[in-house]
C-alpha cells in the first residue's frame, strides 16, 4: 500500500472509542429507550467495543444492541454484489432512540441505505449517527454524524481502513491506486 500513514494507533483508537462511549452515556444513560445498532460488516467491531465498554463501566445497564445488514438496500449493487451479513435486531425500534454505529463516514451512501433498512423495522423516535472516522468534504448526500471519533482531510484517491485484528488494531490512510 503506497503512501500509507497510521492515523490512529491502538492506544489512540481505544481512547477515542472510550470517549465516544462516554458521550453516548452522557446523552442516553440509562439507555432504557435507546438502541445501539452496528452496521454490517465493518461497523460491528466498533459497536462491539463501545457496547461492552458501556456495560463494563455501568454494570447495571441493559443495552439493546443489534446488528444491521444493508446489502439489499445499497444503490451500487448492480456494479458489485456484496455478500449479505446477518441482521440481528432482537428488539422493537418503534418509539426508541437509535444510535447507528459505523467505522468510516465517506460519501454518506451507506448511512442512507442503513436508514432505509432501519425504517423497514419500524419508526424510530430519533436516529443518531456515531462514526469513528469522518472524512470531511467528501459527502455526496446531506448526512452528518452526531458523534465523531476523528475528523480527517483526505482526497478522493485515498482510502481509510480500520484494522481490527486480534494482534493489530489501528486506522490507516493509504493511496488506493
Amino acid at each position, binding site marked *: 500500500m503506497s503512501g500509507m500513514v497510521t492515523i490512529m494507533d491502538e492506544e489512540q483508537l481505544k481512547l477515542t472509542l472510550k470517549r465516544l462511549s462516554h458521550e453516548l452515556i452522557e446523552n442516553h444513560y440509562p439507555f432504557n429507550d435507546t438502541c445501539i445498532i452496528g452496521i454490517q460488516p465493518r461497523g460491528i467491531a466498533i459497536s462491539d467495543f463501545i457496547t461492552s465498554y458501556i456495560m463494563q463501566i455501568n454494570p447495571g445497564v441493559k443495552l439493546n444492541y443489534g446488528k444491521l445488514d444493508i446489502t*439489499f438496500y445499497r444503490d451500487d449493487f448492480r456494479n458489485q454484489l456484496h455478500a449479505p451479513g446477518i441482521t440481528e435486531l432482537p428488539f422493537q425500534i418503534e418509539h426508541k432512540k437509535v444510535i447507528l454505529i459505523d467505522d468510516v463516514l465517506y460519501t454518506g451512501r451507506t448511512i442512507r441505505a442503513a436508514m432505509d433498512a432501519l425504517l423497514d423495522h419500524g419508526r424510530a423516535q430519533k436516529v443518531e449517527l456515531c462514526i469513528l472516522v469522518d472524512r470531511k468534504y467528501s459527502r455526496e448526500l446531506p448526512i452528518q454524524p452526531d458523534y465523531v471519533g476523528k475528523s480527517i482531510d483526505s482526497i478522493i484517491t485515498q482510502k481509510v481502513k480500520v484494522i481490527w485484528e486480534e494482534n493489530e488494531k489501528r486506522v490507516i490512510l493509504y493511496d488506493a491506486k
Partner: protein
Amino acid sequence: MRLSSKHLLGIRDLPKEDIQLILDTSIQFKEVLQRPIKKVPSLRDITIVNLFFENSTRTRISFELAEKRLSADTINFTSSGSSVSKGETLLDTVNNILSMKVDMVVMRHSATGAPHFLAQHIPAAIINAGDGINEHPTQALLDALSISEKLGGLQGKKVAIIGDIMHSRVAMSNMYLLKKMGAEVTIVGPPTLIPTYLKESFDVNITYNLQEALEWCDVANVLRIQLERQNQVLFSSLREYNRSFGITRKMLDELHKDILIMHPGPINRGVELDSDVADSKQSIILNQVENGVAVRMAVLYLLSGRKESST
C-alpha cells in the same frame, strides 16, 4: 461475488460454489421475510415476466411473491388465453414481451430444453421454473435449504427419492444437487419408472423396496405420480402403486427413528403419502414452501446483478 452464469437453467451446470452462494444468500432473505415489512428495494429497477406454459400453483405464487418482496415489477403470462393458441411461436412470444423492456424471464414449459433454447436467442436472464422432464432447479435448491436447516448440512446425509423418477424434473435436479453437495442418494420406485442408466450417470443407489430405503435414509423426498406425462401403462393402478410405494404412518412408526418427509407438491393424498403422514410432525412440506420464497429471492437477486454486463 456473483454467480458464474447469467441464467439459471439447471443444477447440472451449476458449480458447487454457486449452489452454496445461493443457499447462504437465502438464509439472509429468510430473515427479511420475518420482518414487519417483508420487502427490500434491491430490484426496484427490474421488470420480470413470469411465463407459465404449464399449470402451477406453488412455483408461480412463490416466484411472484419473491419478485414483489424484492420490489421488482412483474408481469404474469399464462399460455391459456394468450396468442399462443393462435399459433405464435415461443421465440416470437418472448421477443414481443422483451421489446417492452423486460429484464428477466421466469419460465415453465412442458418441452424439455425450452429455457436453454431461449437462452441462446434472447439477451434477458432466464430462470428455469421447470422444463418438461428435465430440471426444476429452484425446487432442488429449496429442498436443499430445507434439509440443511433441519439436519445441519448436506454432506453425508442420506436422501431417498421415492416415486415417479422417470417423469420427474424435481428428481433430476435433486440428484444433481445432492451428489454435488456430498449427500448420498437412493432412488426408490417401481422398475418401470426408474431408468436403469441413473445408477451409473448419477452414482446413486437404486432399490425397488420402499421399507429398505426408509430404514436407510435420513430424509424421504416423495414425488407425485405424473399421470399427465405418461402415455403408456407403467403400473397397473394407483391403488396398487399405493400398496407398494405409498408411505403409511405404520411404516414410519416401525422405523424406530425419525426421518424427514418431503414432497414438492401437489400431493395426491392416499397415493404416494397417507394423510396422517403428510400432516405429521415429521413432514416438512410446508417448510419447503416457505423456503421457496427465500430461495427464489436469492436467485433473482444474484442474477439481477448482471444487468449491466448484459446490455
